[in-house]
């Protein structure tokens, strides 16, 4: 099965959506579709790393630095699941992929 999200892909935040931080995380809200998602503090960090410049691999590497007791495969899977959920709710957009 083809991988949904490739390591070389770059993601950017959908600026039409509203990002609101609270004490223990943040809400993402799309006023057009009504989509609403709560993300925890780690999710906030990952979401903010999606600047259209960093690749998925870069993001996974940065997250891995903070969780050295968790296997890199596990972190990669978890980050990709999270990013996929934000793409599907249109809080993140895929940038045009340039071949390495």
């Amino acid at each position, binding site marked *: 099965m083809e991988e949904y999200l490739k390591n070389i892909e770059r993601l950017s935040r959908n600026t039409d959506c*509203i990002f*609101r*931080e*609270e*004490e*223990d*995380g943040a*809400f993402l*809200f799309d*006023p057009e*579709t*009504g989509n*609403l998602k*709560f993300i925890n503090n780690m999710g906030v960090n990952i979401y903010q790393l999606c600047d259209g410049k960093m690749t998925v691999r870069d993001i996974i590497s940065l997250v891995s630095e903070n969780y050295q007791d968790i296997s890199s495969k596990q972190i990669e899977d978890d980050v990709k699941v999270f990013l996929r959920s934000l793409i599907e709710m249109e809080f993140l957009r895929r940038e045009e992929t340039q071949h390495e």
Partner: protein
Amino acid sequence: MNDKNVCYTLNSIYLYLTDRCNLRCRHCWIEPLYYEGREDNGDEFDIRFLKKAIEDAKEIGLNRVKLTGGEPFLRKDIIDIIGYLHAQNITVDIETNGTLIDKDIIEVLKANGVNQVSVSLDSMTSEQHETFRGVKGCYHDAVKGLSLLAESGINTQLIMTLYKENISEIERLVDLSSRMGVNSIKINPVMPTGRGKRFFEKEENVEFNDLIKIDRWIEEELVSKYKIDIHFDIPVGLKSLKCIKTRQLFECNIFNIIGILSDGTISLCGIGQTETDLNMGNIAVDDIREVWANNPILQKLRVDIPRNLEGICGRCIFKFRCRGACRACAYGLTGSLNSPFFVCHEAYEKGLFLESRMIN
């Protein structure tokens, strides 16, 4: 989510079986007639019309009916109605003041697989409960009814109406419910509709800051201290983030509900009892499927909610989920189904609505 292409299913009917009640509750938004006997005054709908409406409504999605009133157990043919709904595979919930529940009724409820019975109790002190409910002796009867239900294994809920004077009763009622084996407790702050208006005129309602304090206290202390499910009914936009993340919240499925009043009037919900502008027909003469599909009030509601909600409700990031909390209450207060819910409006006016939950 609303869209003209969306097909709305009528999942639930709120069935107001009678406009009579054997209590005189100070806050009641329906304002029923006080009456102790079981004989109706001749204007309650005939069960034949109800059967037709239920059969028709099943074709457009009906699977649940809530029996309420007035006091539903004053209705002479309530047993027949419960039996009929059970035979139609409809999930039945009942809201009652509990005073007329006896062992015979318990057997009927069990035999017909009633899903949940909610009983109103507002204080552990008989004097306070009876002053609020307006009839001497009703505390004992309500507790007895609640106890019979809990012992029977029927899913039982205690509903507490909250105002300033009974705040200290919250934990006592949670503790009682927990010990009795009641499944859940729902705490509803008094609303400024029907007789409840007077609570607000006399400033007997719980103030906004206290509502928030109570909500956080329940979520941070009571929920972990007691095993029973505790629900404090304030809009999701005012709830703590932890609560939004972890708890199932009650929200009105206004796009999937309709009310049938005791005289057969089809209405948005019980609000039609006092706000007759929201009445849409009568089951004696109108086809409920036709009303559901074409009534202008429902059509406008489906267009307006949540996109044209006004005030703070229109600016809230939870508007697609909350849909402006109770639209009936909003209409009762302002004459508009689009106006903001009064609690959130008050919070906003006082600068207490969280900025993080507002759209600029």
